[in-house]
C-alpha cells in the first residue's frame, strides 16, 4: 500500500481545527449534502427503507462473490474485453504499466477513482515516464497543488477559490481570477487537450453488473466519459466487492448511490461499459481492460465481523454527516479513504495498530449508519476494532494498543465489583478532589496520568456523599 500514509492524526486534526477556511467549507458541505441526502432518501417512492433492501442485495452478492466475479469476468471476455485479477497493489500496477508500455503511451488521463489512489497509480505511471492527468476538476486542482484528496466526492473541499485562482495562475498560466466559472473554463480548456492527446484512459468502477458483463461509472462532469471514450485504450480498476449480480439490482443501488453521494436523483452521466469498440463503430477504445483488485479485501471477507464493510459502495454519505469528519476534514485520516468508512476500512487494509487513531477518533453517534446508502452498521465495526485494540488479536496481528490502559481497566473492574473497595475509592476521591483547581463546580485539571482527560474539557467532581450512602441514611425521598 504505497500511497497509504498514516499521517499524524492528532497533529493533522489540530491543523484542520485551526483552519477557518476548511471549517467553513466542511460546515457548508455537511449542511447541504447531509440534509439533502436525508431528504432525498425520504423522497424515494419506497422511502428510506430502500436502504434495507440494498443491504440485502449487497449481502447476497458478497456471500456469493466467487460466483458473481467469475460470471462478470466471463461476460466481459465474451464482449471482447480483457479481465485481470490482481491479488495486490504490485500486480495491479504491473498490469497497468505493461498495458501502457505495450501501447507506447506518453500521456494518460484518469477519471476519478479512489482505488487508483489506493494502489498509487499516479506515482507508478510518473516513475515510468508517463505523464498522468487527473481530470475530475477537484482531483485536477489537488494534483496541481501536489496534495491529496480530502473527501471522496469533493476532493478539493479544503481549498478556497483564492487558493485555486493562485494555483491556476501559477501552474497553467492564466491571469489570476477567483471566479468559479472562469476557473472551471480554464480547466475545461486545459484538460480537453489532454483528453484528445492521451493514449490511455483509466477509470474506476462504481458498480459492475455480472450478468451483463459491464462496469458502470457515474460522474457529473463528463470526465469519465471523456477518459473512457477518447483514448485508444481504457483500463478500469475496481475493488473486487464493487459488483452486483443482476441488472435489476442496479435499479436500487444506482438510485441510492446518486442520492448518497450528492443528493441527486441521477448523476449527470452514467455509463455502462462492457468491451471495446466494435469494428464498425466510429469511436470508443480499441481495447478494454478490467482489473479486479483484492489487496486485503479477501481478508476482510473471511472475517464475519467485518464482512459487512465490503457492502460499501463508496457514496461518501457518511462523511457528510459525521461530526468528527465535519471538524477534522479528510487529511487527518490518512489516505485514501476518510470519514466513518475510512475509520473502518483503513485499519482493516493498512493495519489496525497502525491506523488505530481512526477508529478510536469516531464518536459512535450512529449518524453514519443512518446516512449510509446501504445501511452498514459502521458503529458496530468501530467498536469491534476497538475491542481488538484493547485485547489484542492474533488473526489480525493486533497487539494491545495500551498495556497501562488495560491494567487500569482490570483494576477498575475489580474496584466496582467489590462494594467496600468502591466506597473507599469514592471517599478518597471526594477528599482528594478538594486539592484540584475548580471552575464553577467543575474540576479544571486532573493530575497525571489522567491529565489528558481535562486538557480540553472540565470534569464533574465526585459527589461528597454517594447515592447509596444517602439512601441508607434516608436522605432521599
Amino acid at each position, binding site marked *: 500500500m504505497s500511497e497509504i500514509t498514516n499521517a499524524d492524526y492528532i497533529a493533522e486534526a489540530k491543523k484542520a481545527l485551526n483552519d477557518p477556511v476548511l471549517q467553513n*467549507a466542511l460546515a*457548508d458541505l455537511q449542511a447541504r449534502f447531509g440534509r439533502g441526502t436525508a431528504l432525498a432518501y425520504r423522497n424515494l417512492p419506497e422511502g428510506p427503507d430502500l436502504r434495507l433492501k440494498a443491504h440485502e442485495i449487497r449481502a*447476497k452478492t458478497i*456471500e*456469493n*462473490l*466467487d*460466483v458473481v466475479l467469475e*460470471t462478470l469476468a466471463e461476460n466481459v471476455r465474451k464482449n471482447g474485453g*480483457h*479481465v*485481470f*485479477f*490482481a*491479488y495486490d497493489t504490485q500486480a495491479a500496477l504491473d498490469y497497468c504499466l505493461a498495458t501502457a508500455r505495450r501501447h507506447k503511451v506518453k500521456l494518460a488521463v484518469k477519471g476519478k477513482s479512489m482505488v487508483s489512489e489506493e494502489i498509487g497509480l499516479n506515482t507508478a505511471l510518473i516513475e515510468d515516464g508517463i505523464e498522468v492527468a487527473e481530470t475530475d*476538476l477537484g482531483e485536477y*486542482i489537488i494534483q496541481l497543488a501536489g496534495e491529496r484528496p480530502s473527501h471522496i466526492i*469533493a*476532493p478539493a473541499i479544503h481549498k478556497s*477559490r483564492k487558493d485555486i485562482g493562485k494555483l491556476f495562475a501559477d501552474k497553467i498560466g492564466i491571469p489570476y481570477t477567483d471566479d*468559479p*466559472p472562469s476557473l*472551471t*473554463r480554464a480547466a475545461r480548456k486545459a484538460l480537453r487537450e489532454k*483528453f*484528445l492527446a492521451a493514449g490511455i484512459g483509466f477509470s474506476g468502477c462504481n458498480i459492475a453488473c455480472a*450478468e*451483463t458483463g*459491464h462496469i458502470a461509472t457515474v460522474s*457529473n*462532469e*463528463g*470526465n469519465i*466519459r471523456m477518459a473512457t*471514450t*477518447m483514448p485508444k485504450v481504457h483500463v478500469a480498476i475496481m475493488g*473486487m466487492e464493487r459488483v452486483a*449480480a*443482476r*441488472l*435489476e439490482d442496479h*435499479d436500487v443501488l444506482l438510485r441510492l448511490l446518486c442520492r448518497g453521494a450528492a443528493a441527486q*436523483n*441521477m448523476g*449527470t*452521466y*452514467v455509463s*455502462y*461499459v*462492457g468491451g471495446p*469498440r*466494435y*469494428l*464498425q*463503430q*466510429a*469511436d*470508443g477504445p480499441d481495447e478494454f481492460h478490467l482489473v479486479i483488485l*483484492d489487496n486485503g479485501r479477501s481478508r476482510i*471477507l473471511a472475517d464475519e465481523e467485518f464482512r459487512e464493510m465490503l457492502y460499501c459502495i463508496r457514496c461518501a454519505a457518511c462523511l457528510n454527516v459525521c461530526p468528527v469528519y465535519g471538524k477534522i476534514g479528510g487529511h487527518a485520516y490518512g489516505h485514501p479513504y476518510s470519514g466513518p468508512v475510512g475509520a473502518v476500512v483503513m485499519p482493516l487494509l493498512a493495519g489496525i495498530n497502525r491506523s488505530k487513531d481512526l477508529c478510536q477518533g469516531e464518536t459512535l453517534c450512529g449518524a453514519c449508519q443512518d446516512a449510509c446508502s446501504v445501511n452498514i452498521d459502521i458503529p458496530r465495526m468501530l467498536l469491534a476494532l476497538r475491542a481488538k485494540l484493547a485485547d489484542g488479536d492474533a488473526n489480525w496481528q493486533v497487539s494491545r494498543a495500551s498495556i497501562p490502559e488495560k491494567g487500569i481497566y482490570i483494576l477498575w473492574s475489580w474496584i466496582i465489583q467489590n462494594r467496600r473497595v468502591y466506597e473507599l475509592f469514592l471517599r478518597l476521591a471526594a477528599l482528594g478532589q478538594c486539592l484540584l483547581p475548580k471552575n464553577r463546580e467543575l474540576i479544571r485539571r486532573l493530575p497525571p496520568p489522567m491529565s489528558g482527560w481535562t486538557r480540553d474539557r472540565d470534569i464533574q467532581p465526585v459527589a461528597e456523599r454517594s447515592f447509596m450512602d444517602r439512601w441508607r441514611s434516608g436522605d432521599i425521598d
Partner: protein
Amino acid sequence: MDTSNQAAFISRIRSALGHSSHQRRPANGLFTSRPTSEINRILERIKNRSHAERQQLLGRLIEMAEPINLNVVVLKDPPAVTAALADLIRDKDPEWGHQKSVVTWAHPLIESLNLSGALADQNVPVYITELKESDADEKFGEKERERLRKHIVDSYIGVTSADFCMAETASLVMRTRPGQARSVSLVPSIHIAVIHLNQIIADLKELYALIQWDTESSREGLTNCMTFISGPSKTADVEATMVHGAHGPREVYIYVVTDS
C-alpha cells in the same frame, strides 16, 4: 489470457466464504433467468400506454428536467424540429474557434430532418458519424475514424437521438451502434437529442425490463456502451459553486416530437 491468477483469486474468495476452495459453485438463483411476474407487468404497462399517459410522462420529464438545467422542447413534427434547430444554430456562437459546424448520428429520425439542406443558407456544414462499409476494415477504418473524430472535435453542436428517455430522472438513454458515435453527445459544446414521444418511459425499472426482456429491445442488450445523460455537464468543485460545462456539453436540449 492468463487465467491462472484468476483461479487462485477466486479460490481465495471461496475459502474466505467458508466453501471448499477448489470447486466451482453453482449460481443458484443469483442471476435473472426469466422475467418475473413483476417484469411482465411492467412490459405490459409500457406496451399498453395510452396517448394521455404518454403526455403525462412528458409532463413529468419536463418537471424533472427543469432543476437540472435540461431543456425540453416539445415540437409537433420533424419540420418543426428542423426549424427550431436552425434558429438555435443561428443564435448560438461556437465555444472554440469561429467556424460553426454540426455533427450528427446516422439515424432515421435525424436524417428525416434534412439538416444539411436547412443549414446551407447559414453556411454551416453537417457531418454524419458513419463509417462507410469498406472503411469498417481495421486497416482502412483508422483514417476514416480520425477524420470523423476531427469533425466531432471541431463541431460545436452534436445532434443525436436516443433509445429511451426516463422521465423520473430526466435521463436520455443511449446505446452504441455503428453510425451513432458516442462522442457526438459528449465533445460538442451543445448536445441536442431528438426523440419521439413514445420513447419516453417512466424509470430505471422500465428501462432494465425493456433491455433485458422485451423481444425487440433486448436483442442488442446493453451493447458495449450504454450511457444515461441527465442534463448538461456540471461541477461544484470550486467552493461548491455549481458551474455548467465542466468537460461535456454546457447545454443539453431534448426535442420531443409528438406526431407519430
